[in-house]
């Protein structure tokens, strides 16, 4: 694990009218690291993801990419930097086949027409290297299981050779077996040296694959924990605010400074 964060957010604030959605939020992601972003409903997880993905830029604060300050105004900016986002339920066209979805918006062409053979070959290679098993890359996505769809959506985000992948609730609404498939895939992303931001409500998933857990509460940082050194109860306490007192805030700061 390298020491310079590939992506660092500092002092991110965002306001929707009278609602202060994010206040002075910090977040760091290093290469080959899975950071779980957790928090209760309305804690600002989605807003923060939208800031990073360029869908809803921040009002205030700075984003550093590999140590350099950058502006992320729209999704194209984020993509060009190397930030890929997999949104829950929103990433795939069910009427297209797996190849069509993987290459959506960046189709390979030869002599001006679609290079179907090339796209299919590279799709197989990509799915093979990620050990994703799908009956055929030519079946419409509508006929795949929820877990298979999620793995296809994640594989798709990798085609642009990103350095940071944001997964928005990748295991929500998945069965036990399918969740395991997706978590396996998250571990393979880490092995490939990618920084992964994993948004999840499921503490078991977070404990299983994350290296660090960043907790948001009411739009503010509420601690960053090392997963191995922290119990599930402590994380839940940080999410619900049971630890929200001067002592724990001081501890959280020292953990964050030491991390």
């Amino acid at each position: 694990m390298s020491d310079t964060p590939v992506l660092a957010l500092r002092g991110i604030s965002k306001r929707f009218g009278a609602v202060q959605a994010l206040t002075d939020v910090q977040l760091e992601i290093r290469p080959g690291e899975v950071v779980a972003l957790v928090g209760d409903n309305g804690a600002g997880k989605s807003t923060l993801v939208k800031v990073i993905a360029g869908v809803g830029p921040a009002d205030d604060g700075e984003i550093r990419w590999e140590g350099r300050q950058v502006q992320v105004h729209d999704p194209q900016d984020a993509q060009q930097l190397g930030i890929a986002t997999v949104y829950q339920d929103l990433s795939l066209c069910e009427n297209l086949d797996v190849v069509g979805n993987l290459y959506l918006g960046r189709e390979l062409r030869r002599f001006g027409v679609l290079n179907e053979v090339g796209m299919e070959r590279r799709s197989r290679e990509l799915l093979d290297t990620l050990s994703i098993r799908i009956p055929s890359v030519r079946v419409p996505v509508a006929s795949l299981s929820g877990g298979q769809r999620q793995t296809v959506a994640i594989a798709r985000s990798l085609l642009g050779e990103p350095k940071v992948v944001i997964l928005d609730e990748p295991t929500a609404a998945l069965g036990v077996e399918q969740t395991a498939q997706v978590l396996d895939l998250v571990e393979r992303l880490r092995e490939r040296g990618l920084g992964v931001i994993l948004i999840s409500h499921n503490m078991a998933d977070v404990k299983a694959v994350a290296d660090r857990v960043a907790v948001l509460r009411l739009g503010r940082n509420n601690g960053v924990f090392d997963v191995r050194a922290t119990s599930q109860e402590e994380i839940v306490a940080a999410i619900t605010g049971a630890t929200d007192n001067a002592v724990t805030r001081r501890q959280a700061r020292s953990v964050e400074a030491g991390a």
Partner: protein
Amino acid sequence: MTTITPQATKDAPPGQGAVGGSRTLLSFVGGQNLSLIGALAVVLALFGILNENYLSVSNMQVIAEAATITGLLAVVQTVVIICGGLDISVGSQVGVASVVSAMVFTSTGDNALLGVAVAVGVGVLVGVLNGLVIVYGRVNPTIATLAGLAAYKGLAQLLSDGRAQGYVLNDDIFVFLGRGKVAGIPAMVWILIAVAVAVHLLLTRTDIGRNIYAIGGNDTAARLAGININKYLVAVYALIGVVAAIAGILLTARTGSGQPTSGSEGLELKAITAAALGGCALRGGKGGIGGTLLAVALLGCLENGLTVEGINSFWQNVAQGALLVIAVVIQQRRSGERAVGLPT
């Protein structure tokens, strides 16, 4: 709904998979088209038995010519329906183009090319206007083009003072478009073939076509994939404008003068019926040119057969409306939509 045969491609070595894939696709598309071919065969056999001239070459040519204008509109209607949109104003757009082409032709001292060019230009403008109203005015496509249906019809009537304008059959170009034949097939039919092949290749062989299917399948996913949906939608409506203008020019060539409403009224119903019968899901993302053309042929043969048998044309309207509803009911049954509340 879709029949999947994973075995067909699972074990294929890389590189040959696309062949297997297109075979799977073909067998799927074939299922839809097979029933259309069956229905077409029944119609041809039925009217062939009832009337011995029905299957003659000359009557087939009559059917083909009559179906050409509907066919052109059905082809572009297919594209917009795949996007998840709809264009009810195509018939009125044909009327505008017909009037404009004849009036420009007459007023410029019989310059046919100028008449054609101005009509196509007006078609582009009308199409772009439709697209802009829908995308930036946030007007539902059905409502926006319903308004267009009325407005463009009025525009054609205003321009022409409500009657047929100009006479174009003293010009070789219009005579060729309306009456000419190449290799025994009417020139009009060749134009339909050319447009249909071009649109088919666009849909199936280019990234533009792939993106059109994606927009109809899941527009949020398409937008997040970086596809400029607005640009695509406006361009698709502009394409409709161009092809409707070509249809209007052919109408002028066929009738000999610019027609504001005669010959173009009700074309929207035929075009949408053909697209729906041909397998387009009205919620978007599904359909193809092959099925639409088969449906155009089926509708054309049916209409001609009913006319040949002397059946009241009022009944033909009933038959057409019924066919559209039946086609959509079949579509919805296949997609397994539950009968709860308003359909999507």
